[in-house]
């Protein structure tokens, strides 16, 4: 943290500065370079997910707290080394019927309005809106947390999808920050002088590393060699190519064709009853509105 980030003489309430549209929702980021957020060492975003929308699996470089402002759904967190404790039952499968591989995955959790969800840094998570209303979350990333050993720029690593626009915005924030800190540190011109004296220095450091290659693919799997991945997953290369294909510009929130049917325990009867009552009340209000 630079020394000037907390020299605050005046505070203002701030709105998100960038809005990224995905197939089934939007992601809005507050500018992480704003003085008050920089001082606190945090980045904040708001996600708005349509019913049946899935926030694709991803992880961030900082721990997160997610507050559910509106809606409900299910959420999965992949904790490294933990067992897949949610398993499909094998009951009812006679020896005559063909043996189907049962699905199993790590614990998933239901969430609803008012919940706070804690997500450690580097841990994959996904969210699915299985309700009838929009899901709205506010996420706080503590980029200054000791768990983040990278710089203070927020980063989201996607396992799937094509979150090109979001990544472009985050890159722009990082560039703005770099330019800002550069102008503040003009006295550090000796670095540039040294570069002029020895222009090959940066190239000499890593003879094998290549310049960052920009690609049309924006998730982690796309960038790996397909032959390597085919061996790592023990599947055909054609299947890996299908995984790596980016179909359309759907962003990081996609619409699920049918409802997502994952292995999960039944919900509490009371919760379901409350929800049915709430739905009935909503319909009545709509009917009343029309009559008037």
């Amino acid at each position, binding site marked *: 943290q630079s020394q000037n980030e907390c020299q605050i003489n005046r505070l203002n309430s701030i709105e998100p500065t960038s809005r990224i549209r995905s197939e089934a929702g939007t992601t809005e980021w507050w500018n992480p370079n704003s003085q008050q957020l920089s001082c606190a060492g945090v980045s904040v975003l708001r996600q708005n997910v349509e019913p049946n929308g899935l926030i694709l699996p991803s992880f961030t470089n900082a721990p997160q707290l997610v507050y559910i402002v509106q809606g409900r759904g299910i959420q999965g967190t992949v904790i490294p080394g933990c067992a897949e404790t949610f398993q499909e039952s094998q009951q009812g499968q006679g020896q005559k019927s063909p043996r189907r591989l049962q699905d199993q*995955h790590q614990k998933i959790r239901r969430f609803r309005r008012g919940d706070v969800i804690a997500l450690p840094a580097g841990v994959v998570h996904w969210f699915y809106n299985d309700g009838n209303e929009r899901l709205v979350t506010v996420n706080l990333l503590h980029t200054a947390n000791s768990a983040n050993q990278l710089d203070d720029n927020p980063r989201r690593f996607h396992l799937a999808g094509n979150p090109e626009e979001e990544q472009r915005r985050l890159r722009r924030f990082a560039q703005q920050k770099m330019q800002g800190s550069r102008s503040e540190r003009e006295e550090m011109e000796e670095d540039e002088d040294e570069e002029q004296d020895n222009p090959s220095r940066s190239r000499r450091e890593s003879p094998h590393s290549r310049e960052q290659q920009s690609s049309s693919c924006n998730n982690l799997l796309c960038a790996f060699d397909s032959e390597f991945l085919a061996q790592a997953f023990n599947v055909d290369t054609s299947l890996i190519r299908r995984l790596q294909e980016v179909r359309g510009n759907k962003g990081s929130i996609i619409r699920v064709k049918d409802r997502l049917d994952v292995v999960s325990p039944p919900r509490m009867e009371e919760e379901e009853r409350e929800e049915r009552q709430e739905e009935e009340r909503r319909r009545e209000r709509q009917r009343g509105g029309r009559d008037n």
Partner: protein
Amino acid sequence: GLEETFCAMRMKENIADPERADIFNPQAGRISTLNGYNLPILQALGLSAERGVLYNRAGTVPQWCINAHKILYMLRGRARIQVVNQNGDTVFDDNVEQGQLLTVPQNFAFMKRAGSEGAEWVSFFTNSQATNTPMAGRVSAIRALPEEVVAASYQISKEDARKVKFNNQDTYFFTSSRSERRDEA
């Protein structure tokens, strides 16, 4: 009391001994880890290490380290290493040869495959309990996701999602494919 505790603290451990391996696959290789659990002084230092061996053309599955940077030094042989950043850009894709060093920043995904003569390396981590998340295999992130989430995320059938989740039963490693071995023969 200091003499009995801090001053006498165990400060060394040999991780090259094959018998000491924590992860082992006779076809692929082995990994020995040294961290704050098996060498407590590393808790205070906030560092850990790993010694790895890959046999002929075997590889480690794609993975990322959730809480540390990784600095790899190639001891013997060579390996092709790919490193991917948060934008899905390949920031490194080349062979790392004996005597060379490569830094993999925290959360950047990487995978490596040994050349025909195998590869041996030592990696240092900037956390005493460095934790890797593999993307493929028996304890991987993909396997921990529900089949339907995998199918929806990659827009593939449930059957294909099942293959992606369950086809590699190994932990951490993969071996060269049969076709490649035939080509070499």
